[in-house]
């Protein structure tokens, strides 16, 4: 299919541009940018909200463009895109820029890109393409093992950087497909038992004390009150201090007095929580909920299995980001550096989220324009 460049096609595509997703992405990125403005005020990160606005603008443009580009043609080229992505990860390992211990950045002319953020969507597209010849019910275990194999290489390269957080965001791509196909309970039970057994053995016989300590701190940050524990503790205080209605824009003491660490990136959501309170949290959570709901709805509309797989995987990735980040800042889940879509500052992740939404919009568009 050609790009819809004729006036009529454009008309149609505009009509079929999913208004719900467009609304959500505009609202969320606006709220995120405002929060960044407040979080960065008076610190070295004062100008971050401006840069994020630029990324949002670029992302919006890329999303609109991609929403007009037939995803099936994109899927057909996904092998070469996949290989390009792997090459990108390899290049990063060689000439990458190290930020807070992870060699995951390509810096060129003042612009930094994090290939691993894009690769998760590339892998999803490639996996969707490979599995797309079969319907969800037609998936065999071997299909899934094969897809897992495709995931192995990029995850391995990302772990080499090392960036555990990003590597983990690759996992939902696979986890949801067995559910989509339908899974027998015995496999679930067997999986849980196997995991337990394996981890018990590894814990008792393979890990050194400092490694155990590191994992325990990951699970329970309060073991390390000066490091990660301090961050989570301050974050919880910020959230709680927000109360029901919040302290108001730019009025959170935790935020403005810098008690809240990494507040423009991983912990930006606690700034939102402190300034907007529980009411603000409910609004943000509702927006994210509708986002996931809508993506899964489009998965159902999709005219091809590729579209369905992509949407379900995308919902998984979005959901994973939302769950881990929002859970982490509240101390309910282990601390790990995973960005919150449209809130956390970051060019690569923001651009990648927009691009993914562009593909989903095209899937929606294709379904409507059939």
């Amino acid at each position: 299919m050609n790009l819809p460049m004729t006036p009529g096609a454009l008309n149609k595509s505009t009509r079929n541009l999913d208004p719900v997703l467009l609304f959500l992405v505009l609202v969320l990125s606006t709220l995120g940018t405002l929060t960044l403005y407040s979080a960065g005020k008076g610190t070295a990160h004062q100008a971050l909200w401006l840069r994020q606005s630029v990324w949002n603008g670029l992302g919006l443009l890329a999303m609109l463009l991609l929403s007009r580009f037939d995803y099936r043609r994109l899927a057909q080229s996904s092998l070469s895109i996949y290989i390009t992505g792997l090459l990108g990860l390899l290049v990063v390992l060689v000439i990458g820029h190290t930020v807070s211990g992870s060699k995951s950045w390509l810096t060129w002319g003042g612009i930094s890109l994090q290939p691993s953020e894009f690769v998760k969507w590339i892998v999803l597209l490639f996996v969707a393409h490979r599995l797309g010849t079969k319907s969800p019910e037609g998936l065999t275990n071997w299909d899934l093992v094969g897809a897992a194999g495709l995931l192995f290489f990029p995850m391995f390269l990302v772990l080499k950087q090392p960036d555990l957080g990003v590597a983990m965001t690759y996992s939902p791509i696979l986890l949801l497909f067995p559910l989509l196909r339908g899974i027998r309970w015995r496999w679930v039970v067997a999986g849980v038992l196997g995991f337990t057994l394996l981890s018990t053995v590894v814990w008792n016989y393979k890990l050194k004390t400092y490694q155990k300590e590191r994992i325990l701190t990951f699970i329970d940050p309060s073991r390390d009150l000066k490091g990660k524990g301090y961050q989570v503790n301050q974050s919880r205080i910020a959230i709680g201090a927000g109360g029901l209605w919040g302290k108001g824009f730019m009025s959170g003491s935790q935020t403005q007095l810098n008690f809240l660490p990494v507040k423009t990136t991983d912990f930006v959501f606690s700034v939102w929580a402190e300034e907007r309170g529980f009411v603000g949290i409910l609004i943000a959570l509702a927006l994210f909920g509708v986002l996931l709901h809508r993506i899964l709805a489009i998965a159902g509309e999709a005219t091809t299995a590729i579209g369905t797989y992509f949407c379900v995987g995308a919902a998984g990735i979005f959901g994973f980001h939302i769950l881990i980040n929002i859970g982490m800042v509240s101390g309910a889940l282990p601390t790990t550096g995973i960005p919150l879509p449209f809130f956390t500052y970051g060019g690569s992740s923001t651009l990648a989220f927009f691009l993914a939404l562009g593909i989903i919009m095209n899937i929606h568009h294709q379904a409507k324009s059939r």
Partner: protein
Amino acid sequence: MDLRQRNLLRKRLATLQAAAWLMVLGLGLVYAWLQVVRRSELQQLALSQAVKVRTTPAPRGIIFDRNGHRLVDNRRALHLVIQQEDLPKEASQVESLAQALEQDPAQLARRVQMARSAGMKRSLIVQDNLDDSGLARAENLRARFPFLSIEVAPRRVYQGDELAAHVLGYVGEVNPQLMSKEPGRYQLGEIVGRSGFEAARNDLLKGQDGQRKSLVDHLGREVALYGLENSTPGQSVYLTLDSGLQKTMQDAFGEERGAGVVIDLRDGGILALYSSPSFDPNAFLGHMSQEDVDLYVRNPTQPMLDRATQGLYPPGSTYKLLIALCALEKGIISPESTFTCHGRKTYYGREFRCDGVHGTLNLVQAIARSCDVYFYELGARLDVDEIHATAAKYGLTELTQVDLPNELPSRIPSRDWKARHGRKEKKWYAGETISVAIGQGQNGVTPIALARFYAMLGAKGKVLTPHLLYGQRDESGQMKIIPPQKPRDAGLDPKVWAVLDEGLYEVVRSGTAHKSALPGVTMCGKTGTSQVTTFVDKAHYRTLAKQFRDNALFAGYAPRENPQIAWAVVVENAGFGADAAAPIARKLCQYWFLDRLKKPLPPPGGKLPDAFEEPQSDEAEQDQEPAAPPKPQADGAR
């Protein structure tokens, strides 16, 4: 995709949608827990780490003498401190800090522990009064121990060093003993008066501490002022002391030990009070050097003891005035009664000696020449309880109520007293009254009590309350006089008084103290020489070690025509009162009546306020003895 499959897919996607909403709900519950249920607790935490409350210590009141000369001033001092919230938790930190400061680690650890457990609102001072090099060292220490900070605080400066140490006292951090004595009155770390007037009127001088609430960032840097309660400085006060007279007394004592008190006869104000040896209160403000500890605290001459209010001395012959007063009032003698002195006399089988052979004398002569035999005779005719009752009537048995801490009561023996305090014997023997009559035996008076007794004589029977607080400084910086306590009229018969006055005048004119007579000033007084050890003959006396020699006393008032001041001077182990104590009193009178008016101290505010010339309100006038101008004496000196 057939219809059945699409339906199945829709069902499974719906399940996933439900899972997504379940996830959102779960997260919502977590936030509800933090933002609704635990809200106030976490808000409190946020507030407590962002808002720091620090006490700003109020400067204590400045202390002036009666002429407005500063005796105690405030300066700014820099202390190396640990703020309450920065108190180190690890013992190793405290230990290495103590090592770096060359302090006892156990003691520092105890102070840190105490500061934490007591919830001290002030910072803990680890090193005080930093000088330039100390400040440089402190800055280096701060790099190693980030919990340290440097604080500016008002600091006391005692002008004149040792000049009025026992009057002023000194200040220091409140100690646990003081805190347990009056629970709830003091805060840990508070600077309070520890002795002297600073302690006696701590309430007046200390002021109200302020509070500074500030918003701090995560590094503890102050970002904004959150709330400020200014401290109210303590009340600045004027003492009745005259620093010129005080200095005269200090110089007159020199190296001698003892104490002297000069009282203003109109209102009981203390014009000078000195205890020798003295100490430098400035040495007690912070950490004391070993040198100062040895000099002041471990010194056997006890420089810290205020001999003027806490030294009990046998009054010796100065006591004879009480005996004379008692005998006259009881009608045992008349002013004309005579006794004959042969240098010695035996009572109850024991021989009592006199300093000389005085022949036949009347009371005035007996006082002037300090004849012991005359007073033995009175002692033989009086009962000890009668003497005690007279002493009580004229205020010698009670505390003088001077505004200084820890005043000791004088010891005026009686039957009852011996029954309660006698060591072996509880019964009073008549022979003891003979010794009592010349101020020996069990008698013990404080210099201030003795001065008040002579002030009573000078004031014709008015029992004054000696005091140091003269006035306070009002908003405009002027002195507002605080009305002194009204004197009690003990009802001294003017005829009796005239005889005593005559006797005291003769002491200086022709009697034992004639060498100390001051041309132009009619001094009245009584010498005293009180035995420290058992009597030995005069030839042997010169060979005695100094600490076994007699105490010299001289108490009196001047000028006779219109008494203005009264005094008592005690010089320890100095020999005869006439030789050692009377010359000091002479110097005091020389300064007060002659030099002060000719060579006044540089006036503080352009005018030298004279205690005797100051115009006072009518009401205040009535409270006091009518004051006549002192000029005639001053002029008469030439």
